[in-house]
């Protein structure tokens, strides 16, 4: 017997999206500065039980997208537009209180840094029971055994003892497991993992990813996996959205994206991953940095760093065009990947 928190919902995959993000735009407005679109018209769907990747390099708007979905962006200094439809409700139209009731219960999130994401002065067990008390109306005593069960479920050895540990008494990998246990405590239907392995050692990274994969498969939880690492996407995601400069530039199911990337940016990302099967081949990092971006208004932001720009790339904004289950925003797609 494992736990009731993970009531199996494995066969709930259907075609009606659980989360449907439409034209999400987040604009930061600092005093005396130009408004800055950190997220610029992003649309994507997540179906129940599906794992969707959001991939892109630092600063492309991955975290801002996830915080906007969670309603966690600071109240001042930004403007959010578009819709975030979760199971028939537009999350952006909910009040603070309504949103607070859903967070941790319907949608949960795991953050990048497992040490700083746990409260350093509260034992880990209490941090698990806290969310059970909040959303399940349990008292602490009743929630304790369940908390131990949850810790066991995420592979923490000796959970009855570990439940009394403070975060600093745990290793990085164990803390991230505890955070996953906390996030999944109330059996949310959607889990957002924002670079959950970036702060961990490589071997621990693989363990955490395998754990996440196992858990979402067992429980039927939908997962949005945010990462800058295509290796993570390859092992985990059903569908991949590639973000560049706040816009989705390419989308598709995992295998087609990896086999035939069409956007030069995606292609470049794949070219910069070390591959085991191509010994001796040189890695080709994408030249330049986000600082070289053009504004999306009348150009493709990626044009200055692109390997195959054409004249139109610096004159008009490419639109996101959908063909079958793939979508692409490019004037001059890659024909012969790598």
């Amino acid at each position, binding site marked *: 017997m494992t736990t009731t928190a993970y009531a199996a919902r494995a066969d709930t995959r259907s075609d009606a999206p659980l989360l449907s993000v439409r034209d999400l735009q987040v604009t930061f407005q600092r005093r005396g500065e130009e408004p800055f679109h950190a997220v610029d018209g992003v649309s994507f769907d997540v179906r129940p039980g599906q794992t969707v990747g959001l991939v892109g390099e630092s600063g492309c708007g991955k975290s801002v997208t996830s915080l906007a979905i969670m309603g966690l962006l600071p109240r001042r200094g930004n403007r959010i537009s578009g819709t975030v439809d979760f199971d028939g409700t537009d999350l952006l139209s909910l009040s603070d209180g309504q949103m607070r009731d859903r967070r941790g219960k319907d949608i949960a999130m795991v953050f990048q840094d497992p040490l700083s994401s746990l409260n350093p002065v509260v034992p880990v067990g209490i941090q698990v029971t806290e*969310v059970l008390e909040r959303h399940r109306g349990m008292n602490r005593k009743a929630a304790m055994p369940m908390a131990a069960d949850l810790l066991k479920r995420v592979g923490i050895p000796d959970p009855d003892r570990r439940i009394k540990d403070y975060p600093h008494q745990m290793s990085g990998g*164990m803390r991230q497991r505890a955070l996953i246990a906390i996030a999944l405590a109330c059996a949310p239907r959607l889990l957002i993992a924002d670079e959950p392995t970036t702060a961990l050692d490589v071997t621990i990274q693989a363990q955490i990813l395998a754990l996440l994969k196992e858990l979402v498969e067992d429980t039927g939880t939908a997962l949005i996996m945010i990462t800058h690492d295509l*290796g993570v996407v390859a092992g*985990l995601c059903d569908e991949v959205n590639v973000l560049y400069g706040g816009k989705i530039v390419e989308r598709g199911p995992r295998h087609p994206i990896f086999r035939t990337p069409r956007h030069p940016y995606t292609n470049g990302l794949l070219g910069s991953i070390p591959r085991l099967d191509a010994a001796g081949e040189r890695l080709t990092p994408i030249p330049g940095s986000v600082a070289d971006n053009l504004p999306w208004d009348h150009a493709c932001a990626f044009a200055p760093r692109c390997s195959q720009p054409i004249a139109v790339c610096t004159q008009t904004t490419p639109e996101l065009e959908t063909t079958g289950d793939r979508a692409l925003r490019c004037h001059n797609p890659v024909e012969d990947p790598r």
Partner: protein
Amino acid sequence: MSNSDENPKKSLFSRYGDRRKARIDELAAMSAPRTAPAPVPVGAGGPAEDLTVHESGTIEEKPGVSLWQSAWHRLRRNPVFLLGLTITVVFILVAIFAPWIAPKDPLQGYLIDKVRPQSNPIPGPEPGFPLGADHLGRDLMSRLIAGSRQTLIVGVLATLGGFAGGLLLGTLAGAFGGWVDSLVMRAVDVMLSIPSLVLALSIGALAARPSQWTLIIAIAVVQVPIFARLLRGSMLAQRSSDHVLAAQALGIRRSAIVTRHMLPNAMGPVIVQATLALAVSIIDAASLSFIGLGNPDQRIPEWGAMLGQSQRFIYDNPHLAYYPAICIIIVALGFTLMGESLREALDPKTRR
């Protein structure tokens, strides 16, 4: 926070206030959470093949140590801290057990027969009276020992009062923000720009009938703005921390976030400040008693009052002033040394 050297035209008070504010803010910043690791370049890392479930096996990494543990580790070998700690512990023990330690009754004029107002107002040391007696023939040694209790009571109560007031105001400001914040913090800044002793004297002088309680209140009020600014600063640092964001992502109620996630983590600087505040309270209390704004009952031994009474005899019997003054200085120094080394040990800038 403005730099006091930039604007020579600023009044003395506002420069003084700026310096104090900068110091408090620096202390508050101590509770700021450590920053996330630098982002890794895109595309780097992990294997590009399917992961297997079996890999989610065991964990072998070294756990870290807590902030307090690492601080203690370094304090244990810090002679300055140990000196401060020793002084403080001895002082507190003496204060608590004063009635049993004091060799004589501090209120009784044993040597009153030897007091000659004209020729010899102060009886010198003699067997049983190692430091001699005061102008009423009371044993000086016993009065000094008994006086430690007053000092401790006033210091602790005033600091607690200052902390309680600061906690209320700082939490209000830090948790609500907006106009509550502006209002509270403007008032606090004004109070901070007045030197603490001047403020304590003014408040103490307001009391129609000075007593030990008006003394405690006057000194507590002076500590309120310091604790308020400090708590607000560390609450703000907590508000933008990862674990508070994580708690918000779990839908935890705002009241629980403040009391369970923000306040306990904002306590480090407060403990440091409380230690330093004790030193200041002791000196302030002595100063107020010295000029007669303390307990009007002159029979009760109190270091500041003893110092005040000694002034009449200072030319021929300076030792009457030296002893209480040395007590005040050593005790205040003990708390200061302890507070400063605590601050250093908890400061992320000097840590590791």
